[in-house]
């Protein structure tokens, strides 16, 4: 699904007023909420609501996708709605790492491949793209391939279905050893009165 603009920020993806939730499921209903109601611009209906876009799993966008707040809710909402990958020209740092931690693939292609993809989407918004994580390659509508980069360590975790928390928990001895030579500067429990 194309969302061909730059700087799609996390306030657009998941408006702040829904942040009072303490769950992480059911967030898809708030995805792009204000854009979908037509408050944000002239698009009506917003592309997400077009019948031909139902069931889309890849979102294609422009520069600096996910800029703004650190809210992971943006990633949860995209995934809850059904997206599994975002192909953008570039990503904001925090969004990028939040996405990977939840198995939402943030993909950046070479400029020419991204241009081709966008041209194909502009001609027909329903063209198909496939992503192969093991090969770190995308099959473009033209039939061509484009490779993308995922940090090898993260790729290993994703393919093995291990998450970062599992990995960090294996570091326990190293952490304890570090704490012995790095005494804490503060104790938050020593309450100032």
């Amino acid at each position: 699904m194309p969302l061909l603009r730059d700087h799609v920020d996390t306030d657009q993806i998941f408006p702040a007023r829904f942040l009072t939730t303490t769950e992480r499921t059911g967030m898809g209903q708030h995805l792009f909420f204000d854009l979908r109601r037509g408050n944000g611009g002239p698009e009506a209906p917003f592309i997400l609501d077009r019948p031909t876009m139902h069931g889309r799993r890849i979102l294609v966008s422009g520069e600096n996708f996910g800029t703004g707040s650190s809210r992971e809710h943006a990633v949860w909402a995209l995934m809850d709605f059904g997206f599994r990958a975002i192909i953008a020209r570039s990503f904001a740092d925090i969004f990028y790492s939040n996405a990977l931690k939840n198995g939402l693939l943030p993909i950046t292609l070479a400029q020419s491949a991204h241009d081709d993809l966008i041209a194909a989407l502009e001609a027909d918004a329903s063209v198909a793209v496939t992503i192969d994580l093991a090969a770190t390659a995308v099959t473009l509508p033209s039939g061509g391939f484009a490779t993308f980069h995922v940090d090898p360590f993260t790729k290993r975790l994703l393919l093995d279905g291990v998450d970062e928390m599992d990995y960090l928990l294996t570091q326990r001895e190293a952490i304890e050893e570090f704490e012995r030579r790095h005494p804490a500067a503060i104790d938050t429990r020593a309450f100032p009165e």
Partner: protein
Amino acid sequence: MNTPPRTLLSKIWDSHVVNATPGHPDVLYIDLHLAHEITSAQAFAELAKRGLRVRRPDLTVATVDHSIPTHDRSLPIADAAAADQIALLARNCWEHGIPLHGADSPHQGIVHVIGPELGLTQPGMTIVCGDSHTSTHGAFGVLAFGIGTSEVGQVLATQTLLRHRPRCFAVRIEGRRQRGVTAKDVILALLGRIGLKGGIGHVFEYMGPAIDAMSMEERMTVCNMSIEGGARAGLVAPDDTTYEYLAGRPHVPSGAAFESSVSRWRGLPSDDGVEYDAEVTLDASTLEPMITYGTNPASAVPIAARVPDPEALGNPAAREELHRALRYMGLRPGEALLGHRVDVVFVGSCTNARISDLREAAEMIRGRRVHPSVRMLVVPGSQSVKRQAEIEHLDSVFRAAGAEWREPGCSMCVAINGERLAPGQYAVSTSNRNFEGRQGVGGRTFLASPATAAACAVAGEIADPRTMEAGR
């Protein structure tokens, strides 16, 4: 043997690496974790699901700021979801032994305001929080950055994170600011210069005479908005200004222990001759009060500027984006910003709600009236800021002028606490984000300094704080 010169960033990084495996991100130790109500619940739930405990409650501290209303604390919280979220944070903290500066604590406040003021933020540390403006703490020579909720869970359980070493971006601010030009204007000007993604993958290190001359609170304002330039963190090398600020704060050691900390901290600044991955220089003496016209913080221009014309842009995507932003803002290309209608003025947020910010706004307001068509909210950053302001009678200055004097919290910066703009309203805000809908659905935000915001409140339109001062 000569060790190669290192940056402040490298020194902090090197001393926090728990495990470095080639080809893997480093396991980085976190000295302080700040928690608040809106990005922690799912992380505590994750710990419960895995049967894990919080590893270091003594390195964790929580407060409520985002969704708590800033009206009178004796009133109930109208939004049930917000009330539940706040109650859940209290329960999670209690279960794990994490100290909580809750709604009735004398230390409650915006997480990035209370860390420094309690002396929890100390040079050379690593600090994280599930909030992107954690970069604020970098003003103390601290590597401080925002994290997502999955990472909040990782830090709660292991006190570590997986991270690749970021690159370091030298931001030199030369010269001296002119009268009427604030720290907020400096950072807005920088954002206007480097854009929203100039800093991606980097940590900014701010340096140069204009930074050296700044107070800690001004440095915090600058570091706060590093994230708006795409950098996860911003740093200022600690110096005597830093040590003076810290001396005597509750969590800072005293006496000989303080002296020994200071001598350790003196080794932190970047070594002479060190190389940076990127550099930019700004001359503070040429800067003017700044304001944004668009829907991202990099759309900052001198206050007397006119709204730019999208048609003058070469890049079609940028042209379309600017058209879209101007449509949202209801602004015409070529229109002057000065004199534009203002409905709400918000003085607050982790960018500009410390005591010096309130003094700056109060100075402008003193003896004047908020324009009858304007609602002005003044929201102190913490209980401690509020107490100090009341000692100085700043609250009376604001009240006498017709402004609202409120309880500490994020308030209209994030608009999830009942305090928000109505569709179509224009706000001049001292906060850090002007995205579509950030301050309320359909609300339109001009970002500016506290002095500018206060001048606009009086004028009822966008006004230059320098002319208002002169016209007194």
